[in-house]
């Protein structure tokens, strides 16, 4: 299928921290400016802006996209926001792709920002409003429950143990030591994870990524612009997204169908037939430890029930055959929801250009993937990139 080629030509991001002094606009500005500088462009050369930010309740501003527009370089420009909960960061890049691939624009600044600390003292309470207001909210659920529910199903279905899954936190936090923006890098052990405070069995504290503030941005350009201004453009060769039914209690959560459907579309566009062989490096969304494995299976990077084996065999380490979350992921770098997913896109961008510094995986990868998830265990958003 002949799609107009779109490349990522620049990237920028802020540190991810628990409480940022900066306002959301300022965080968005820092990331956008860095991205523009890295692409060697100025704002006048940007045709449009795509803003991606997760629930307004966190930043504490309704119509958050409007509020962020000027910090995102959107003053006087066509600015459009997109939103699919936690999947927003990768959807934001896909949304930017819509803008450029359509031919309507040649360049797009894609900005994701999150200031979760505005929901004070903790944004957890805001999550109750994601559940059905009539049939579920009266039970006062929290997002942690739904993760614990899914983790339980996943473990049950494949016979995985908490010990198996805890290794994801160990790997990612260690990887994050080499990420300059990381919020919670560190060397921890599987026992540290198992002994950490129980939040909602089977989820322990160290199974969970932190609440964060931060912003990340990339610049997209049409082929003729990319080739002119960029030495090493990274091409967006495949995009896919899918949203499952809101009736989440009717779905067997052990397998993320929504990720597979999205991935299939992205692979089809990119001409990928065997993802486990053709994808060299992947950044699946890892807000919780088990999610990295859950998504690996949904992305068909391994067979169902095999993800733990790959983890145990070291295949998913930076030096392994299929590095997973070399950035340190959400568990290590932080989770300002939509910005975290753009961080993953940026990681693949840098890795494919050989510019990931200490995090660089060996073997000169040429094809990578970033994926995000969100909503009530509902949405999968996937981008396949090639250098």
């Amino acid at each position, binding site marked *: 299928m002949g799609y107009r080629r779109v490349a990522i030509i620049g990237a920028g991001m802020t540190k991810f921290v628990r409480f940022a002094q900066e306002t959301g606009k300022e965080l968005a500005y820092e990331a956008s400016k860095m991205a523009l500088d890295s692409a060697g462009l100025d704002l006048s050369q940007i045709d449009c802006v795509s803003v991606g930010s997760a629930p307004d309740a966190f930043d504490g501003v309704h119509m958050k*996209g*409007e509020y962020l527009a000027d910090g995102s370089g959107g003053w006087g420009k066509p600015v459009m926001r997109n939103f699919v909960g936690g999947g927003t960061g990768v959807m934001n890049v896909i949304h930017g792709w819509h803008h450029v*691939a359509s031919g309507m624009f040649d360049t797009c600044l894609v900005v994701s920002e999150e200031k979760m600390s505005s929901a004070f003292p903790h944004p957890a309470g805001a999550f109750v409003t994601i559940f059905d207001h009539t049939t579920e909210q009266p039970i006062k659920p929290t997002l942690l429950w739904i993760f614990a529910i899914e983790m339980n199903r996943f473990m049950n279905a494949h016979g995985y143990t908490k010990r198996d899954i805890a290794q994801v936190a160990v790997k990612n936090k260690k990887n994050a030591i080499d990420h300059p923006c990381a919020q919670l890098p560190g060397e921890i052990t599987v026992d540290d994870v198992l002994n950490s405070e129980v939040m909602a069995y089977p989820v322990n504290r160290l199974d969970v990524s932190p609440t964060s503030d931060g912003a990340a941005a990339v610049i997209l350009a049409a082929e003729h612009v990319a080739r002119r201004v960029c030495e090493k453009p990274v091409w967006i060769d495949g995009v896919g997204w899918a949203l499952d039914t809101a009736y989440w209690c009717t779905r067997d959560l052990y397998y993320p169908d929504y990720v597979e459907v999205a991935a299939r579309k992205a692979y089809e566009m990119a001409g990928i037939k065997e993802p486990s062989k053709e994808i060299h490096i992947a950044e699946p969304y890892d807000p919780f430890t088990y999610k990295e494995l859950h998504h690996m299976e949904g992305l068909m990077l391994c067979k169902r029930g095999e993800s733990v084996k790959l983890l145990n065999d070291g295949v998913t380490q930076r030096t392994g055959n299929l590095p997973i979350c070399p950035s340190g992921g959400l568990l290590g770098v932080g989770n300002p929801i939509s910005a975290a997913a753009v961080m993953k896109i940026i990681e693949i961008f840098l890795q494919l250009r050989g510019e990931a510094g200490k995090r660089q995986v060996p073997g000169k990868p040429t094809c990578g993937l970033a994926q995000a998830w969100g909503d009530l265990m509902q949405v999968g958003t996937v981008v396949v990139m090639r250098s």
Partner: protein
Amino acid sequence: MGKRVAIVGIGTTGFRATTPDVSYRELTYEAAVKAYLDAGIEPKEVGAFVATSEDLIEGYSISDEYSPDQLGAVLKPIHTVPGDFLQSLANGMMLVQSGFADLVVVQGLSKASNILNVGEVLTFAEDPVTVRPLCETPHAVAALDMCRFLHETGTTREQCARVVVKNRRNALRNQRAAHGTLLEACDVLAAPPVAEPLGRYDIAQHADGAVVVVLASEERAAHLRRAPVWIRGIGWATDAPSLDSRVWGDARYARLAADMAYRMAGIRTPRREIQFAEVNDEYSYKELQHLEALRIYERGQAGRATEVGATEPTGEFPVNVSGGSLGCGATFDLDGGQKLLEVVLQLRGEAGTPQLRGVTTGLAASWRGVPSATGAVAVLSN
């Protein structure tokens, strides 16, 4: 301009002040069923869906969770644009032009009646540090703009009152409208002030409703039975979101959006090449301000044109024949959908409301409401 994209199906529930018998699910489902029937398609043929919603308007965080079921979009590519319906439409158009899908569905909904304190919600959209603590009614933001607009253009409150009279009378003849009534200009001027110069009748009341649109590529449209309505041009823009940096009195976002749409459509003299328009009139003065920003009328002339009846259904440039927001109801981000609906029906000859004769090109212009400075414009032809 890229591939041509057409509207091949449209469905609506109409606009009503309250819809107590149905939830948001059934409202959207009704509009979707009608749209798909209109287009002669089934949702499984649709390549991508774009929903429109803002969390605080729906009363859900991550409101996009609740979008797929009532559109038949389960496990399909669907995402949400927290923006005006016309922005979602633009996104749908981009999806077709990129080649990702040759059939795209765009949806918008208003359940305004379910929000008990709209003022609180709109206040929540204001800058938390520099504006919100002032605790003004959000209407004050529009009043500030109106004050400056009247001052700079010489437009009068009477001319604004004529807009209210026209639109609410038009709505009486529109079976889909919620707030049709007969008023005289003196009624509007004598109404209790809300935030001067805005009086009660200058401000549109809200309405519930849903609109679903089916877009198709030119090749696909050729196989469908509906005569297509072509989206010749589309544009959207955001001006200064901060009130502090805003240029008051001027709908700059509308001018930028219109320029983009006109360029795409190859339109040089909008007033001659377009025959009618549906433009946001959530506050009475907005219709006039928008008409000038859209270059339909010169600065300061829209009010005069209204006075002499030029924008009446029988006038030389009918504006808001549907009744607009004042007549149909203000519908938050469905605004562009309400405007688009009327333009499409007029171009198809199915409007029912005074059917404008011999129209070939219409314009829809929306605004996201206070305190935003974002709007979108679409130019359509049959």
